[in-house]
């Protein structure tokens, strides 16, 4: 019912505005069109000036209201470089923004049509044009210089001592694999994926490196102050491993592994103490991946080395999980049993080819 009333009210509003507009047209004919035009000109010139003043105030007000809601200072070393770059760019662009907007609206107001005012015939001036070609060029060179300086640091090789963790996105969850004691991630092949047999990532069990790899879902733990390198992939569509607090982001592309590394600076506990108990380093999917995209959430826990070791030690390796009980409860009957032995042989060709790559 209320919808109907809203529609009726909107229609009435339209009608009123339209009638006023129509009437103003008749009035203008009565008053003399030239006079009306000049009145309108004055009003609009004045409004442009008002818009400038109110607009600049609005920019300040918006900043006051919202600056507290943007993220806390970066929680990673790379993020600090990105924040520095943002400050440099903000300083330059904000100055340009204020100057050009003031000029635009001030000129509009100042040079509104006036009786006896003549427009100045000024078709070109090479000196001016050279000035405003060269100055932006220099400024942009500076910005490109800083930007690329940081860019290569951020995207450069990860340090040797970095903790390697594999990330796999799929609709709509994150899974993580730790290499275990040997420090090596075992080979995997997507055709080996079998969730019913506890092989969500398609690890190839023949590869001995896979024996101690540990797989966890939803929550990943990393060590504070130690570089961490993520090897990022996807099972189905493109996702994006987005870590807003660390200012990092990298697509998860099926078939093409990508990487990202950084050093976390503050533990989750420190952040909770500072920003409240509901604080979490959240992992968001930043590349649209389907209807559940907005719920594809994960969490990074940053903790001390000791805590991390305790946490990881509790986890069983995926190999052990997959081989402890050959048939999980939901998979009943013999076919599963027989394939569990025969499958490695039938798919032998492909995985070996893959291993040789």
């Amino acid at each position: 019912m209320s919808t109907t009333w809203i529609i009726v009210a909107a229609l009435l509003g339209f009608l009123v505005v339209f009638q006023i507009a129509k009437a103003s047209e008749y009035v203008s004919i009565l008053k003399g069109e030239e006079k009306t035009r000049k009145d309108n000109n004055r009003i609009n010139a004045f409004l442009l000036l008002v818009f400038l003043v109110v607009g600049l105030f609005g920019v300040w007000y918006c900043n006051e209201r919202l600056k507290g809601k943007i993220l806390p200072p970066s929680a990673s070393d790379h993020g600090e470089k990105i924040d520095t770059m943002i400050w440099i760019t903000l300083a330059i662009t904000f100055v340009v923004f204020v100057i050009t907007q003031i000029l635009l609206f001030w000129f509009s107001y100042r040079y509104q049509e006036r009786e006896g005012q003549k427009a100045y015939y000024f078709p070109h001036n090479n000196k001016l044009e050279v000035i405003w070609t060269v100055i932006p060029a220099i400024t942009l060179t500076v910005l490109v210089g800083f930007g690329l300086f940081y860019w290569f640091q951020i995207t450069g090789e990860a340090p040797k001592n970095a903790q390697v963790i594999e990330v796999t996105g799929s609709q709509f969850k994150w899974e993580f694999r730790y290499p275990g004691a040997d420090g090596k991630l075992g080979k995997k092949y997507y055709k080996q994926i079998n969730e019913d047999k506890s092989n969500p990532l398609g690890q190839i069990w023949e590869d001995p490196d896979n024996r101690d790899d540990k797989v966890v879902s939803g929550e990943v733990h990393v060590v504070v102050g130690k570089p961490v390198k993520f090897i990022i992939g996807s099972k189905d569509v493109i996702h994006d491993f987005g870590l807003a607090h660390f200012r990092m982001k990298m697509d998860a592309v099926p078939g093409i592994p990508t990487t990202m590394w950084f050093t976390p600076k503050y533990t989750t506990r420190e952040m909770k103490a500072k920003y409240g108990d509901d604080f979490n380093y959240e992992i968001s999917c930043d590349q649209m991946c389907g209807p559940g995209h907005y719920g594809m959430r994960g969490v990074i826990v940053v903790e001390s080395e000791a805590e991390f070791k305790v946490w990881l030690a509790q986890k069983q390796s995926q190999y052990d999980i997959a081989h402890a009980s050959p048939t999980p409860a939901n998979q009943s009957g013999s076919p599963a049993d027989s394939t569990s032995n025969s499958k490695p042989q039938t798919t032998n060709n492909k995985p070996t080819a893959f291993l040789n790559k």
Partner: protein
Amino acid sequence: MDNEQIIHVHEGAAGTHEVIHTNGHGDGHHHHKQSFITKYIFSQDHKVIGKQFLITGITWAMIGAFFSVIFRLQLGFPDTSFPFLETIFGHWARGGKLDPEFYYALITMHGTILVFFVLTAGLSGTFANLLIPLQVGARDMASPFMNMLSYWFFFLASVIMMSSLFLQTGPASGGWTMYPPLSALRDAQPGSKMGADLWIVAMAMFIVSSLLGGLNYIATILNMRTKGMTMTRLPLTVWGLFFTAILGVLSFPVLLSGAILLLFDRNLGTSFYLSDIYVKGHILPNEGGSPILYQHLFWFLGHPEVYIIILPAMGMVSEIMSVNSRKPIFGYMAMVGSLFAICILAFLVWAHHMFVTGMNPFLGSVFVLLTLLIAIPSAIKVFNWLTTIWRGNIRFTPAMLFAIGFVSLFISGGLTGIWLGNSTIDIHVHDTYFVIAHFHIVMGVSAFFGMFAGVYHWFPKMFGRYMNNTLGYIHFWVTMCGAYLIFWPMHYMGLAGVPRRYLDFTPWTSFNKFGDLNKMISVVTIIVFAVSLLFVFNFFYSIFKGRKVRTQNPWGANTLEWTTPINPGHGNWPGDIPEVHRWPYDYGKDGRDHIMQTEPVNPGETTH
């Protein structure tokens, strides 16, 4: 009734034309008695085709904008249910709340419709058709028949895209960029079933339309200029449309190839974009493809596309600013040069959309450099516009206000481009609300402002009547305030890392702080939408009932379209096509208000 009057005027004009033809000026331009169908539906008159593009574009704009209102309702008021949504959309909005799949369908269609159907076809389709022959001094396009086909392929594309809205599984919902594998896998989401196929086919038709139109525009500008109309005497509108057409002709085929390969992957079992995929419990056989290939093909069009959208607006704004400041455009050659520079650079920056796809960082750095280079011609244009109004004698018609609004928005949105083009910053704000704010301001709203300016300015030429000024002023001020209120605060959301294309922020502790802001944005969106409807009403009402134009040159402009009769017939000029003697920007020269392009240069005249 007034409609009929217009028709009579049209016929009258055509009649005089006929008479003059028989008076021995037979350059092969034949006019037969035209039926309603050949005159208004399958018309080959560029002016009618321009109007067809415009009206189709307006229809699409209303649909696309309505979609944004629907999803803004959901984003602004996540806890409220809107029973009327279920009335309209049935199972897509059960219980008055948007289904996530439908939300993604809406944003996908909103993007596709506005980028392609409104701001490409509706904008350059309209004004290239209307203005190129009129401003270069030609009786029609190089190939009027191809021109007609261009509209009808667009119409066909519209019909196909529209019909996809009525599928049981919904229209395409992979985002307007339609990245595979999401858009390629039927199992990945319902919108990737039939809807995605129809999207691809509609886009293929659209591309055909765009190519037919673009080739025609280029041919007309290069070959059919009237006597004396050298390239450097062309109004900047024509230059803008010329570069737009070149961009379209060179880049749309690449999108077509990308889309066709996607169609193959979807239907013929090829693996151009697919590799190593396990979806919904199925292991797919495809190996060796690259989803990133699609992104390269897509953005090779996708980036020039944003210039396809903005260059016509830039051209029109230059023209309108000069006319209403009663002052020549400042730095005509620099304006042309910067358009040219933008046109070249537009082809060399596409991968800045892909900094975080895992692309080689060195390649990324090259694209950073080339991307930020675009800021230079853009800066030149802004400074030249500022100098154009400096010491002018400015008339604030609704068109001029929209032109000033365009410059303001172009500055605001252009400057954030410097943020996003720098890969270091892009890592953080990529695919967040910052990007939404940036591109809506710089190419969405700006291009709309250019389009509105063009409609208000050339409405008298199109229909021989004026639009209502008061409604025009209301339209401008509400839209101008609304544009900033909606998109300015989104920069902050982006800096807070809030990702795009999220239906609901409640599960997130980092992103759920903007509830009030989202409400405000949604309310403003609805108001701006209502005012846009007012504009549409003004448009259609004024076609039939607007104040009549009584002088040939109502704005006191110099360009050739104002030398035609108030209601020009097919062929544009009843007599000979006028000869051109000067550039189009002699305003305020030697103490004269304006000097038409057709006026010979006086011996005593100063040169510039």
